[in-house]
C-alpha cells in the first residue's frame, strides 16, 4: 500500500519496515489465521489493521501511545507471514517498530517495572531459579496479589526440578557423523532440564557429538520482543563470540523454538552494523534440532509395543518464524506404532508467545483454551511440541479442562522411543 514513511528516519531497519508496509495489499487473507482477530473480531487487532496503524505512527499521523493497545496485543506469532500471499515480512515491521515504540512511549511505570523484572530474571538461570523457589513458597499468598502478578504464578510448576549441570561435551555413540553445539535455553534449563537431556541422548544415539559451551547466555529473544534492542545486542554479542570459539561445527542446534528464531534474528538486529557479517555466519549454522536430525537421516527408533496416538502442536516460532513444519512430523512418523494426529487450526497460536501469557492473561487464556480443545479433540494420548513456552502453556490449559493428556518435547518422545528398544 502507499505510504509516506521516511525510512531513513528510523535507522538501519527503517527500510525493512517501509518495505513490509509497501508489500501489504490490504487483502485480508491474513485475518483468519491471526489469533487476536479470531478472538476479538475487530480490525485494529488484525495483522492488516496493525500494519495500517504502524504505518500511521511511522508517518506521524498517530502517536505511539494511541496505537499501543492494539500493537501490544500482537503475539508476534507470525502466522500472518505464513498466510500472506503478498509476501509481507511482518516480522521486519513489528520488531523494529517495537524498539521504536519502546523509546517513544509515555511512561507506563507498572509495565516498565514488570518488563524489567522479567528481563532481569528469566534470562539468568540462577536468579530465575531463586525467584521460582520464592514464588512456589509464597503460593498460598497468591490471592493477595494484583491480577497481573497472579497470572505468572499460576503458570508455575508445582515443584522446581533439581539443578542439572550439563557436561561440556556429550560424546557421540558409535561412529561420529556430525559435531554440533547446543543452545540450552535459559528458562528451559530451569523449568525442564529433562528436555536438554533427552536432546543430548537422541543426538548421541544418532552419532552426533554435542558441545555445550558453558559461557553461552540468553539468546536475547525476550529483550528483542519487548523492544529492548540494546539489551538484546549485549546478549547477542556474547553468543556470537561463544559459538565462534566452539570449534568446527556442522550446526548450532536449538530445541526451544523461541531461542532458535531469536538466534536467527541476529541478522536483522545487526543489520547495517559491524557485526552483520558474523551474525550472518551464525545464522547459516543455526538449525532446530528436528530439522537437523531430519536432514542428517534419523536412525530408526524401536518405538512402542502398543500403538500410541500423538498430536503434534506447531510452535509458532518453529512453524511460522522458521518455516519448520514437516521435519518434526517426519521424525515422529518414523517411530513404529506412533500414530500422528493433526489438530484443527494448526496455525493458530496457543497464547504462550514468549512472555505474552504474563502480560495479557485474558487473551492468552482464550487462545489456550481454544488450543486445548483442538488438541483434545484429536483423541490423542499425548502432545508433542518443539518449544518450552508452548509446552508449559498447553500443559496448563489441558490441565484446566481436566484432561489427562501429557505434553512432551518432540525430543522426549524420540528418546523414549529409542530407550524402549534398548
Amino acid at each position, binding site marked *: 500500500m*502507499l505510504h509516506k514513511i521516511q525510512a531513513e528516519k528510523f535507522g538501519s531497519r527503517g527500510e525493512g519496515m517501509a518495505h513490509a508496509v509497501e508489500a501489504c495489499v*490490504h487483502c485480508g*487473507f491474513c485475518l483468519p489465521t491471526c489469533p487476536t482477530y479470531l478472538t476479538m473480531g*475487530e*480490525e*485494529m487487532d488484525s495483522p492488516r489493521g496493525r500494519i*495500517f*496503524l504502524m504505518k500511521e505512527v511511522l508517518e506521524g499521523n498517530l502517536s505511539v501511545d494511541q*496505537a499501543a493497545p492494539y500493537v501490544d496485543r500482537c503475539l508476534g506469532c507470525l502466522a500472518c507471514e505464513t498466510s500472506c500471499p503478498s509476501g509481507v515480512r511482518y516480522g521486519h515491521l513489528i520488531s523494529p517498530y517495537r524498539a521504536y515504540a519502546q523509546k517513544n512511549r509515555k511512561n507506563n511505570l507498572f509495565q516498565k517495572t514488570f518488563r524489567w523484572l522479567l528481563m532481569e530474571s528469566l534470562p539468568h538461570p540462577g536468579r530465575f531459579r531463586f525467584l521460582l523457589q520464592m514464588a512456589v513458597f509464597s503460593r498460598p499468598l497468591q490471592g493477595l496479589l494484583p491480577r497481573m502478578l497472579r497470572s505468572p504464578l499460576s503458570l508455575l510448576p508445582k515443584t522446581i526440578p533439581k539443578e542439572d549441570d550439563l557436561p561440556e561435551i556429550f560424546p557421540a555413540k558409535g561412529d561420529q557423523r556430525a559435531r554440533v553445539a547446543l543452545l540450552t535455553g535459559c528458562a528451559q534449563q530451569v523449568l525442564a532440564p529433562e528436555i536438554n537431556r533427552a536432546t543430548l541422548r537422541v543426538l548421541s544415539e544418532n552419532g552426533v557429538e554435542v558441545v555445550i559451551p558453558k559461557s553461552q547466555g540468553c539468546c536475547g529473544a525476550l529483550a528483542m520482543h519487548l523492544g529492548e534492542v540494546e539489551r538484546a545486542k549485549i546478549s547477542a554479542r556474547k553468543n556470537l563470540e561463544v559459538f565462534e570459539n566452539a570449534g568446527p561445527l556442522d550446526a548450532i542446534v536449538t530445541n526451544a523454538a523461541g531461542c532458535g528464531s531469536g538466534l536467527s534474528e541476529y541478522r536483522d538486529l545487526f543489520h547495517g552494523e559491524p557485526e552483520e557479517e558474523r551474525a550472518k555466519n551464525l545464522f547459516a549454522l543455526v538449525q532446530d534440532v528436528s530439522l537437523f536430525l531430519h536432514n542428517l537421516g534419523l536412525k530408526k527408533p524401536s518405538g512402542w509395543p502398543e500403538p500410541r496416538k500423538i498430536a503434534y502442536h506447531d510452535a509458532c516460532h518453529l512453524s511460522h518464524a522458521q518455516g519448520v513444519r514437516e521435519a518434526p512430523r517426519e521424525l515422529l512418523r518414523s517411530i513404529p506404532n506412533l500414530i500422528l494426529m493433526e489438530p484443527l487450526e494448526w496455525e493458530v497460536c496457543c497464547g504462550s508467545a514468549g512472555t505474552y501469557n504474563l502480560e495479557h492473561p485474558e487473551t492468552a487464556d482464550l487462545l489456550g483454551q481454544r488450543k486445548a480443545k483442538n488438541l483434545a479433540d484429536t483423541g490423542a494420548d499425548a502432545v508433542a511440541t518443539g518449544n518450552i513456552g508452548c509446552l508449559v502453556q498447553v500443559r496448563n490449559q489441558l490441565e484446566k479442562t481436566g484432561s489427562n493428556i501429557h505434553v512432551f518435547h518432540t525430543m522426549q518422545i524420540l528418546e523414549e522411543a529409542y530407550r524402549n528398544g534398548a
Partner: protein
Amino acid sequence: MKDRAALIKDLGRIFPPDRLLDSSAQLAPYESDGLTCFRSRPSAVVLAETQEEVIQTVRWCYQHSVPFMARGSGTSLSGGSVPVADGVVIALNRLSRIVQLDPVERTVTVEPGVVNLKVSEVAAPYNLYYAPDPSSQQICTIGGNLAFNSGGAHCLKYGMTSNHVLGIKAVLPDGEVVHFGGPSLESAGPDLTGFYCGNEGLFGVALEVVLRLLPKPEFFRTVMAAYDSMEAAGNAVTRIVSSGLLPGALEIMDRLAIKAAEAAVQAGYPKDAAAILIVELDGEKDAVESDYIRLSALINETGANTVIVARDTVERMKIWKGRKSAFSAVGRLSADFIVQDGVVPRARLGEALAEIERLSNIYNLRVANVFHAGDGNLHPLILYDGREEGALERAEELAGKIIKLCISMGGSITGEHGVGLEKKAYLPEMFSPVDIETMERVRAQIDPKFISNTGKMLPGGEAPALVIRGLHPLEKEGILSRE
C-alpha cells in the same frame, strides 16, 4: 464535525464502550476496503453482536439522518466498503452464528458475518458444501457476498451468490425488518431475494441468510495446461465450451500472474509459460471420466506445451492455491495495483486480451491477467508505482479504458466485484438515463433518507472524501468534487 461527534456518544445507549469505536486509532484501520487508494473516515464503528443491535443502530441512524454502512471483512475491490465519511460503520464480524443447518433440506441459515469458507466447513460432515467460491473465500463474509452477488471460479457451472440464496431477513434503511423468500426452493410472487442480492449495501443490512447447500461432487479431474500465447489459451476456452463440455471451472492466468503465484505458493506452474488454463471437471465419477477423455483430446489439439493432471486432492489444491492467491500475490511484483473487473462475451475473449495488451503498452504499465474465462469475466490487474508522480492517474485512466472496452464489446462493467465507488462513473455508459432514473426511484422508495451506504453504486449523491492523489475519474466526469 463536532455535532456528529456529540451525537455519536448517544450510540452508547446501544453499545458498551468497548464496542463503540470512535478514537483515531480505532477508526483508522476501518478507512479502506481491499484497495487502499480509497480512504474515508467514519465517525464511529460499532461492533454488533446481535441482530437486535443492528436493527436498533439502523433505526437510530434513520432517526438522526446519519449515513451508515454495513461492513463484512472489507475485501471489496471497488471501494464498496469504504466508510461513508462521518457516518457509522456497522461491523458484522461478530454477528457470525450458524443459526440452523438442515442436512435433509440441504439448507443452512447463517448470520451475515459468517465467513464464506466456514459455511462449507460446517456442511462438510454431511457431505455438503456451499458452491460460490470467490478467491477471497477464506475471509470474505456471506453479507458481503450477498451485497456484491459474488462469484468464483466455479460459477460457470454453479452460478453466482444469488443462485444459492433462498431467503433473507434484513433491516431496511428506515428500520423496517423484512423477510424475503424462505427455506423452500419454490416461492411465489416476485423474486425479492434476487432483487436484494447485489444491492451493494444500499438496501440496509442483511441479518440472516438462508443458503442452499449442494452435495459435494463425488469426483474431480483438474487439469492445468500451459500455452505459448494468451491467444492460444483463449482459443482453447472457446473450443472447450463450444464442444458442449461444462467444466466446473475454466480459468486463465497470464505470464505475470503465473510468476506472482509461483513466488507466493509454489503451485508448480511452468514459469516460462505465456498463459495457463485451469480446467476442472466435477460430478459423478463415470460422467467425469468420460468427459475427461474428450477434454484431454481437445487440449492436445489446442497445442498446449505442458499438461499437468492432479493425481490427488493435494495436487488439486496446489493448482487451486496458485490461482486463489494470485491477486494478493501480485503484491510481490508491485506494491501498488488496481484490480479491474469487467465482462466480455466469451467469443471475443482473445480480441479483448489483445486490446488490453495494446493499451498496456501505450500506457507503459504492466497488466497481469487472472480471470474466469468460462464466463468471460476478466480481471486485469494494473500494476503501477505509487511513488511515481502521475502513475496512479495513468493506471486509473487505463482501468477506465478497459471498462469502456468491455462495454463496447457488448459486455458489462462488473462481473462480480461490484460498482462501488470505483465504477459508478461508468454506469451511465452502460445504462440509459431512463434505466438509471428507474434505479434511483427504486432506491428512494427503499431508502428515502439516502443513508444506506450513501454515495456508492449509483451516480450522484454525496460521496466520501476520497484520499487519493490527482483527479479521480469521478471528478474528471464532474460527478464528484472535493472541498
